[in-house]
């Protein structure tokens, strides 16, 4: 079975690194990390991920803007996106059934187990 390609776009580089370590450690995923929102579109086009983990609050271009741009690109618009954020609580995520504005959400900090289950859930959608 092919490994799934996961793109992590997060300005917190160490977080990207740790997620890459943990996900690739399972043998199920190939992970690429990108710490600049501005590079999101070009990296996505090049890497062609099966799913994007996208941080919302980033200093240059934020997650919302990244999604907005991707929606305009035919080849990118159907790639599942899971938002990562440190400014909503788990409670808020739960009350919205993990979806805000139509997108699935993960609240930081997140355990590896939860991260994987969320990735898997959204890959199959």
């Amino acid at each position, binding site marked *: 079975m092919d490994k799934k390609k996961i793109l992590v776009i997060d300005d917190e580089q160490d*977080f990207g690194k740790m997620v890459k370590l943990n996900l690739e450690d399972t043998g199920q995923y190939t992970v690429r990390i990108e710490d600049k929102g501005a590079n999101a579109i070009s990296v996505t086009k090049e890497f062609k991920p099966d799913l994007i983990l996208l941080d919302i609050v980033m200093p240059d271009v934020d997650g919302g803007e990244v999604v907005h741009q991707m929606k305009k690109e035919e080849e990118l618009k159907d790639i599942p996106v899971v938002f990562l954020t440190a400014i909503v609580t788990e409670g808020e995520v739960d009350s919205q059934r993990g979806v805000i504005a139509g997108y699935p959400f993960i*609240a930081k*900090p997140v355990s590896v187990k939860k991260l994987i289950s969320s990735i898997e859930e959204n890959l199959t959608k």
Partner: protein
Amino acid sequence: MYVNNNPVNVLLIEDDLRVAQLIEDMLLAVKDVKFQPESIGSLGPGLDRLKKGNIAVVLLDLSLPDSKGIDTFLKLYAQFPDVPIVILTGFDDEILAAKAVRQGAQDYLVKNQADIMVIGRAIRYAIERKKGEKELRSARNQLEERVKERTRELSEVNEKLRQEVKEHRKSQTALQAAYSELKEAQTHLIQAAKMQVVGRLASGVAHEVKNPLAVILQGIDYFQDKIDTSNENIDVTLQCMKKALLRADDIVKGLLDFASASRLELVRQNFNLIIRNSLLLLKHQFDKHKIRIIEDIGEDSVYVMADKNKMEQVFINILLNAVKAMSQGGTLKIKTYVDKISGVGLAIGSRKDDIFKPGDYVAVCEIEDTGTGIAEDILDKVFDPFFTTTHGSGGTGLGLSIVKNIVQMHKGKIEIDNKKDGGVKVSVILGVVS
């Protein structure tokens, strides 16, 4: 002054007719005063005569057929204190006569010794003295009357003064009340300002803290997978790190909840339903801690403007505090009702509050537990952020501050107090909408 034409009526009470006649004769012989004597032989008829009035003076023999001794005088004097009495006496009862004088008789005359001069003078003096006595008495009465009047005036002034003191005390109390109201408003303002700052800080802090926490959690998870966890020390260390991390995350979450109260979705909701839902969600907690629930929740729909999730969070938080206070079991009373805010002495709360106006209808939920209560010295701190009595056992110190923040964002009021018979009573009050 007796030199005038008015006769002076003299009543002679004397049983010895001879003496009586003698004295009458003598009186009639007086030139400068016109005496008009009349004689009666015993006391009873004498008293009867006196009742008819118009007697200027009485000449009284003490030894009468129907009365003897000093009693004779006393009986007469008791009934006619204003009539001057001159005692007629024999040698043998001169001492008695003197005694009668001490008790109010005007004078005494010794029979057979008294000549016309003596009798006339005695009668005149008796009348004069009695008149003086009367004037004195009247003056004294007047004086007493004036004293009474002055006393009355004084006690009126006194009463007025007392009223003034009372008024003064009242206004002092009102001033005190106004002062505490002002102080409360000030506390409110400071609290509100604190909340605002905390709210603004929350998102920033959350972002800056949660990101590193996210890195650490991923790291711990990585180690747990990689390291030989059969080594118990390593396993315990990693577990402790993870627990500490989650605790830090809880604090930040609390801060976010706190800040998020400013983003409410207020919709018309059934107040009673929100409370029922909250109770339902905690049923297992009540069962687990053997807590008996006494529900007095109205069947009617009472509508309030509320964010259902946030309001449920409020009640769940309050109920969980009650559970914590009754971990060994107890009784939880939960009651709702609608009340009308009255003008003076609000039915709800002891202090005036500008949140609700007189005439407003409010929905009230009272939650009472039989737990440990709250120490009086910390009662006013329980709504402060980061104030907790459960350090190290999961309390972040944000629960009640968030609860208060949410209630205030609903333009409501929350009060917490110890009950007299132990335990705590929390009241949540929201304005009713139709």
